[in-house]
């Protein structure tokens, strides 16, 4: 064992940064050979936490109830932009049951930025917070604050370009000579389309419960990043890392919206410190829909030029992004820069400041928006060229990342096109446009998917095997509902040669101090599972060495699988407990760390979806009848969880395409549909048949497992495929999504 610190590159949703990584040479486990027969990996497994989640027994952060716990509420302005001219903090403090009131300036985030403001600049900005014995008393305290405002006009996206009202400098990326490329084209199309503000709408809202024990803080946080939450809380309150424990055992969805401690944990901890009592702060549904976050609204214009054989000669993208109050500019230009081979590309992204909260991550942020418009433009180009849309995509296939010039570590997009085409019956798609007995207009459309999802260090795990041959895997995973803890069990069981039922995996708690990355960027599987396999590999080697002692056979002559130790010559076949039973109260422990990604490659995921829709031209109703989703994410660890992920992505993509849209009132700047009755998430009755498949071939260049992430890829192409199917069915293209009856009737008029 020889630990070293090496410099490596870490990628998160397209952002690359150099990090120091602790590498242990023992961690360099060889990948399974492509023809290896695996017992557990690649076999469908139900998740261990399924019964508790479905029966309601699981305790989410919103369910935490501690003795003496106070209930906190946040005061938010009823207009998006205002100056506070009055706030009766004393009246709130005097309200029966109220234990603490924080006003503007009373609470800060870790960097010292104020959390509460007297100049709210976006819809729902927090102004004050109240903690009280009961929720009703907190509401009475909130009412007693009686805020008065000088109201300011909200900032709309219209006018943002003219006023140069940007959250940061617009970004231009140029490759080659796009003007010359477009000028040389035989065919050229331009398409402008708006994409909607899309709200994550997790079932469990943002929530935190904080409890101080002396100088130590325990925080239950509904977050995708419990280690980020720990760091933020430690910095904010001047604590050592070990003085802060963050627990995120069950998370009711995040989809990108729940990063770090959040305002909720910061305020809960502040109020708990002020009162000496545990404090619970959970957003209400209306708050969640207004301030929880969203995928930003965009207006994108794509210009494409191609030679008559379909070869792209130039791509230009101009994207206006309604950022809200700020936030990171998500990679909306990435699809134009990378999906297809094209030497001449110009992308411009204009981040306009508006009066909603800063945009935040939502499942494949930026790339969903970019693909949704670019892939419609590709179909328009296919129409202009008289080419089959899938053929045009194949004709522009590329096997390297054109920005860096590096080859992809693996890419099976062409196989995805073939398989999706076969499953969808693509060859017969034009028959759908024949007059239909039910009077509906039918069509089929496709779209390509690109995303990252290679993961990387750091990620750590331990495996502990006891005398009864039961293994405990401990990780830094926060399982936001995707089943990643089950994947950790699968990988450990495979490596240990134990039945899956003999392995449990834990996460959701920073106390073991085993780091795992944020559950985002499709990185949990590719980052954590290699660390799990590595830890299990060490336990396996120790176990075999002990077996050699007990059975008096050289370790190299022994194998373990399905809980049995066998000699290679077949003479010996014993239960693994024959060996572990000798341990008594001792255990076999192994630690594992994720090694760096290989130099000289870009790691991405790819895929293709094909949608079939039926449009009622009389009412404007678009029904999705089938979606085929084929994604190349390397090796599939758990096919059941993988198909669930793909279905979930498609479902969310259907909402984005057909019904979900945050609507903002122009007078006040407040969303008018920040409630689930008016913000239409799809229901099961809206769901089509969803056919999912994967090439399921390990990426030979990824360490130890060859598995990439799947959280984000399946949502990327869904809306584009549906929009293309709509255009195929109707011959028209909507200038904006979602395709609500109102828009469809206007387009078809």
């Amino acid at each position, binding site marked *: 064992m020889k630990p070293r610190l090496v410099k490596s590159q870490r990628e998160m949703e397209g952002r690359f940064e150099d990090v120091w990584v602790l590498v242990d040479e023992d961690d360099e486990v060889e990948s399974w050979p492509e023809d290896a027969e695996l017992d557990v990996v690649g076999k469908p497994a139900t998740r261990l936490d399924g019964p508790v989640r479905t029966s309601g027994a699981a305790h989410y952060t919103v369910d935490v109830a501690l003795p003496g716990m106070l209930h906190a509420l946040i005061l938010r302005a009823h207009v998006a932009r205002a100056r506070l001219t009055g706030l009766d903090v004393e009246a709130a403090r005097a309200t029966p049951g109220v234990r603490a009131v924080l006003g503007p300036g009373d609470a800060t985030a870790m960097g010292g930025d104020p959390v509460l403001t007297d100049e709210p600049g976006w819809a729902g900005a927090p102004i004050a917070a109240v903690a009280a014995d009961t929720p009703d008393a907190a509401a009475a305290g909130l009412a007693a604050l009686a805020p008065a405002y000088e109201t300011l006009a909200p900032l709309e996206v219209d006018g943002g370009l003219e006023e140069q009202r940007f959250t940061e400098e617009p970004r231009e990326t140029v490759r080659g000579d796009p003007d010359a490329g477009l000028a040389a084209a035989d065919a050229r199309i331009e398409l402008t389309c708006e994409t909607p503000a899309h709200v994550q709408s997790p079932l469990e809202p943002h929530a935190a419960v904080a409890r101080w024990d002396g100088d130590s803080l325990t925080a239950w946080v509904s977050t995708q990043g419990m280690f980020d939450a720990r760091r933020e809380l430690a910095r904010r309150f001047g604590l050592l890392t070990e003085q802060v424990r963050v627990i995120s055992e069950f998370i009711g969805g995040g989809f990108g919206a729940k990063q770090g401690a959040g305002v909720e944990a910061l305020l809960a901890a502040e109020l708990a410190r002020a009162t000496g009592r545990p404090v619970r702060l959970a957003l209400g549904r209306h708050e969640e829909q207004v301030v929880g976050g969203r995928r930003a609204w965009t207006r994108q214009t794509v210009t494409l030029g191609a030679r008559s054989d379909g070869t792209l000669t130039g791509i230009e993208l101009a994207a206006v992004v309604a950022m809200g109050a700020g936030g990171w500019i998500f990679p909306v230009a990435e699809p134009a820069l990378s999906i297809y081979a094209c030497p001449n590309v110009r992308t411009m992204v204009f981040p306009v400041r508006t009066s909603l909260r800063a945009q935040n991550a939502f499942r494949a942020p930026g790339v969903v928006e970019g693909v949704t418009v670019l892939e419609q433009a590709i179909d328009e180009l296919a129409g202009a060229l008289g080419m089959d849309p899938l053929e045009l995509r194949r004709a522009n296939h590329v096997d390297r990342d054109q920005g860096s010039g590096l080859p992809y570590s693996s890419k099976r997009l062409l196989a995805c096109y073939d398989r999706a085409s076969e499953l969808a019956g693509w060859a017969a798609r034009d028959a759908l446009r024949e007059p239909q007995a039910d009077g509906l207009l039918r069509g089929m459309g496709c779209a390509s998917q690109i995303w990252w999802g290679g993961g990387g260090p750091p990620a750590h795990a331990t495996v502990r095997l006891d005398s009864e041959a039961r293994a405990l895997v401990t990780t830094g995973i926060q399982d936001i509902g995707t089943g990643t803890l089950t994947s950790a069990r699968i990988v450990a069981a495979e490596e240990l040669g134990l039945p899956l039922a003999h392995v449990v995996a834990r996460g959701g708690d920073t106390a073991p101090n085993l780091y795992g990355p944020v559950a985002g960027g499709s990185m949990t599987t590719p980052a954590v599972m290699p660390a799990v396999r590595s830890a299990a590999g060490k336990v396996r080697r120790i176990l075999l060495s002990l077996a050699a002692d007990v059975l008096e056979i050289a370790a190299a002559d022994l194998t373990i699988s399905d809980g049995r130790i066998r000699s290679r010559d077949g003479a010996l076949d014993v239960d693994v407990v024959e060996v572990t039973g000798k341990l008594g109260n001792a255990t076999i422990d192994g630690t594992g760390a994720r090694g760096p990604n290989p130099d000289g490659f870009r790691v991405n995921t790819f895929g293709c979806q094909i949608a079939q829709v039926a449009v009622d031209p*009389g009412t*404007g109703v678009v029904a999705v009848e089938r979606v085929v989703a084929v994604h190349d994410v390397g090796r599939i660890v758990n096919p059941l969880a993988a198909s669930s992920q793909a279905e979930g992505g498609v479902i969310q993509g259907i909402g984005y395409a057909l019904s979900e849209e945050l609507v903002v*009132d*122009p*007078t006040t700047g407040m969303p*008018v549909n920040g409630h689930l009755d008016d913000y239409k998430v799809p229901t099961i009755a809206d769901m089509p048949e969803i056919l999912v498949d994967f090439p399921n071939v390990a990426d030979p260049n990824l360490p130890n497992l060859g598995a990439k992430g799947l959280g984000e890829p399946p949502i990327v192409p869904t809306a584009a495929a549906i929009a293309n199917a709509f255009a195929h069915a109707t011959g028209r293209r909507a200038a904006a999504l979602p395709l*609500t*009856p*109102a828009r469809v009737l206007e387009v078809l008029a």
Partner: protein
Amino acid sequence: MTTYVRPASLEEALELLAGDGAAPLGGGTDLAGQVDRGISAPATLVDLRDAGLATVEPDGDGVRIGAAATLAELAESAVIEPYAAVGAAASLAASPLLRNVGTVGGNICQHTRCWYYRGQEWHCWLGGGETCYAQIGDHRKHGLEPGDCISAHPSDLAPALAACGATVEVRSTTGARELALLDLYRRPTADDRSLLVLEPGELVAAVRLPTPPDASAYQRLGERAAFSFPLVSVAAARHGDETTLVAAGVANVPRKLDPSDPLAGLPGNPQSTWKRRALVTLVERALAAVSSES
């Protein structure tokens, strides 16, 4: 502070409803939302489930539907079969869970879904304020009829019942009166913003359907395949050569349409003219469904 009471008879319920701030409670699926958003603040919730109002039964040549019958009970009731529009409306409203608790009385008396009226950030004209924010804001889902308020009527049942000629039995401690269902509704005025003609203490106790029509049908357009209020809906009922059309989603109230000119009086606003096209389609389909020629 809200008091909850569960009277054991209609008479007892009417006594309680005569008190200040009393509100009838059926399934609570609309009332709970109103309380949550500060639209209503009842002092007393009078739970009607034991008040004997939950029956759906033959009534001469027609049917009497107790106000506390749930939408699911109505949809499953055999006596409603001759009124196809009513059965369809009852089974297409809301979602299975809501239909299991939401009541007929609550459904026809529910408040509009206008997002400005429902939103706590606005104090709109209908809610007693001065401005119809929908007319200066986003009215893509609002009504087509001009007025001080352009909110749209949201009930699926009301147009279906009205097309079939329904009346309502209104009760209070001082007596009973029977009105045509359409007369239960009113367009709000500057000095009275209410959308129902009910006086304080009055309760819709039952809906009566007369002799069944020769044919009836209900057509609706929602925002998704289930669990959506109707954006526009049309009920048609034909007696011999005469067809009655009633629409929801186009005016403050369930509104009769002239079969020969269904768009009359419904010009719409810039963002809602699409509803005119949807309305024409639904009228055509409803008329076709009740046509004697099919």
